[in-house]
C-alpha cells in the first residue's frame, strides 16, 4: 500500500509541474500575440478619457492579465489566480466566469465521448478475439481489414460521411446541436428523447473511429497470448474450451485496460472535430469558438482543463496497472 501511495505522490508532483508548464505556455502565447493588443486597447481606452485604473480593469477583464507592470508581475498574478481556480472572465459571454462556462460545456463532451469509448471498446475486444482465433478465415480477414480502414480514416471524414448518409440523404437523424430547443429542459420524455436522438450520430462517429484501434490491439494481444506455453499446456491437459478461453481473455485484455485508461484522457479534448461537425456544445466546440472570438481567457482555460484531464488519466492508468497486474506489483516490491 505504501508503494502505491509513494507512486501516487510522485505522479501527482509531476502532474502538478506539467500543469504549471502548460499554464506558463498558454500565458506566454497570449502575451506574445503580435501587435500587443493589450497595450493597444489600454492606450485606446485612456485616449477615450477613461481613468488609468478603470482602463486597467477593463483590459484585465478582456485578456485575463494586467496590461502593465513587469512581465513577472503579470505572470505571478495569473498563476496566483490559477490556485484560487480563478481563470478570469469570458469576453464572448459577458460577465460569466470562465470556470462556469467550462463546467457547463464539459458535460456535453464527457457523456458522449464516454459512451462512444465504452461502446467501441466492448465491440472491439469481442470482435478482436474472434478475428484472432479465426485469423486464417475469410471473416477474420474481413474484420482485420475493417479495423485497419476505420483506424486510418480521419475522424472528421467519418463524421461527414455519416452526416451525409443519415441526415442529408435520408433525414433519419438530426445532425445539428445537442437537443431540440422546442422542448422544455427537464425530466420529460420529449426532452430526453431529443437528447438521445441528437447524441446518436456523434457517439456513433466517435465509436467507429475508435473501434479500429481496439480491434487491432485486441487481435494482436490475443495472437501473442495464443502462442504462450501455458495455453498449450492447458489444452494438453484436456481442459474445457470455455476455461481455456477464459485464460486467454484474462491475459490478453490486461494491456487493453491500460489503453482504455489512457484513452479516457482524451475524454475532454478528443471530440473537437465531432463537436464542430455536429455543432455540439462541448469543450472542443468551446475552444474553437474562443479561438475565433479571440476570447483569450476562455481559450487558455479550456486548453488547461483539457490537458489536466489527460495528465489525470495518465496517472490513473499507471496506478490501475499496478493494482490489476500482479506481475508489475510483485516486480516492484522485489526491487
Amino acid at each position, binding site marked *: 500500500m505504501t508503494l502505491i501511495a509513494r507512486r501516487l505522490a510522485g505522479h501527482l508532483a509531476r502532474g502538478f509541474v506539467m500543469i504549471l508548464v502548460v499554464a506558463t505556455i498558454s500565458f506566454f502565447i497570449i502575451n506574445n500575440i*503580435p501587435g500587443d493588443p493589450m497595450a493597444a486597447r489600454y492606450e485606446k481606452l485612456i485616449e477615450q478619457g477613461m481613468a488609468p485604473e478603470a482602463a486597467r480593469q477593463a483590459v484585465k477583464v478582456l485578456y485575463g492579465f494586467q496590461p502593465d507592470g513587469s512581465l513577472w508581475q503579470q505572470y505571478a498574478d495569473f498563476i496566483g489566480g490559477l490556485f484560487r481556480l480563478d481563470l478570469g472572465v469570458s469576453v464572448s459571454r459577458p460577465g460569466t466566469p470562465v470556470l462556469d462556462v467550462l463546467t457547463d460545456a464539459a458535460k456535453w463532451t464527457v457523456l458522449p465521448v464516454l459512451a462512444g469509448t465504452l461502446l467501441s471498446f466492448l465491440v472491439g475486444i469481442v470482435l478482436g478475439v474472434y478475428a484472432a482465433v479465426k485469423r486464417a478465415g475469410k471473416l477474420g480477414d474481413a474484420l482485420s481489414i475493417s479495423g485497419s480502414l476505420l483506424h486510418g480514416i480521419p475522424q472528421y*471524414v467519418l463524421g*461527414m*460521411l455519416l452526416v451525409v448518409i443519415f441526415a*442529408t440523404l435520408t433525414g433519419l437523424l438530426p445532425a445539428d446541436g445537442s437537443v431540440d430547443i422546442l422542448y422544455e429542459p427537464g425530466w420529460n420524455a420529449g426532452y430526453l428523447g431529443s437528447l438521445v436522438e441528437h447524441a446518436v450520430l456523434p457517439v456513433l462517429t466517435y465509436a467507429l473511429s475508435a473501434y479500429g484501434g481496439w480491434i487491432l490491439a485486441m487481435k494482436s494481444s490475443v495472437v501473442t497470448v495464443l502462442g504462450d506455453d501455458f495455453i498449450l499446456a492447458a489444452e494438453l491437459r484436456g481442459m474445457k474450451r470455455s476455461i481455456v478461453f477464459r485464460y486467454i481473455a484474462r491475459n490478453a485484455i490486461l494491456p487493453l485496460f491500460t489503453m482504455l485508461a489512457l484513452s479516457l484522457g482524451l475524454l475532454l479534448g478528443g471530440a*473537437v*472535430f465531432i463537436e*464542430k461537425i455536429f455543432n455540439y456544445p462541448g469543450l472542443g466546440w468551446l475552444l474553437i469558438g474562443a479561438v*475565433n472570438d479571440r476570447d483569450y481567457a476562455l481559450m487558455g482555460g479550456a*486548453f488547461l482543463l483539457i490537458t489536466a484531464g489527460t495528465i489525470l488519466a495518465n496517472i490513473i492508468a499507471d496506478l490501475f496497472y499496478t493494482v490489476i497486474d500482479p506481475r508489475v506489483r510483485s516486480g516492484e516490491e522485489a526491487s
Partner: protein
Amino acid sequence: MSATLIPETGSAASALRRNFWRGVWRVMRRKPSRMVGVVILAGFVLMAVLGPMLLPEHLPDDPGAITQPPSWEHWLGTDPQGRDVIALVVKGSRYVLLTAAITALITVVVGTAIGLFSGFRRGRWDTVLMRLTDMKLTIPGLPLLLVLATVWRFGSPWQMGLVLGLLGWGGVARAVRAQTLSLRERGFIEAARGLGLSTTHIIGRELLPSMAPYIAMNMLISVTGAVYSQVGLFFLGVLPYESDNWGVMLNLAVFQAGAMITPNALGYLLGPLLAILLLTLAIVLVVDAMDEIFNPRLREE
C-alpha cells in the same frame, strides 16, 4: 592488397543491392494491391508538383454555374464561385503534400537524433530527454494547435510543416530509443565496439542502416498524421481562408455551401474527402508493403 579488396566489396555490395531490389519487386508482384499504393502515391506527388503549373493562377469562375452537382463538364461539380472542384483539389494538393513532406522530414530527423542519442548514451541525459518527451506526448496536440492558431500564421506550407514537425517528434523519438536500446546489445554492435571503431562509425554505418526501414515507415505514418492535422485545422475554420488547402474546401463546403443540407454541394464536399481517403489508402498500402519487405517474420517465402 587494398586494390584487390575494393572491387570485391564493391561487387558484393552491388549484388546485395540487386538482391534487395529483386526482393522488393517480388513482394510488389505477389500482391498487386501494394503496387496500386505506390502508383497512387506517385500520382499524388506528380499532381502536387506539376498540377498547379498546368492550371491558371486564378481558376476561371462562372457566375452562371455556381454550386453545381457533378456533370460531364465538371466531374465533381463546381464551388459557390463556379470553379471546377477537381481543379481546386489539384491546386490544394501542393500545400497539403509539401506540408506533409516538411513535417515528416522534421519529425524523423529530430526524433531519430534524440532517440539515438538517448538510447546510445543512456544515463542522465537519457532520463532528462525521455521525461521531456513524455511531457510533450501528454499535451494534447490538436487543442495546442488551436491555441497556436491565434499567434502563429499558418499561411504557407513551411510555417505549417515547421509547427507540425516540432510538435510531432515525440513518438518517433520513443520508438527509435527502444530500437537503439535493443540493437546495442546485439552481437554486431558489440563486435564493432570490440574492433575499436569510432562511435560515428557505429551509429552511422551499423545502427542507422539496420533501423532505416523502421524509420522510413515511421516517416510515412507521420505523413498521414500531418495530412489529417493540417486539413483538420483548416476545416475547423480557425485559420485564414486565403491558402489553397483541402481543409479550406471542406470548411467552405460544409459551413458555407451547406453540403450537409443540400445534395447540390455534395460534389464540392466529396472532392477533398476522396482525395484524403485515396492518399490514406495509398500510404497504408505502401507501409504494409514495406513491413513485408523488411520484416522477416511476415515474409511469405
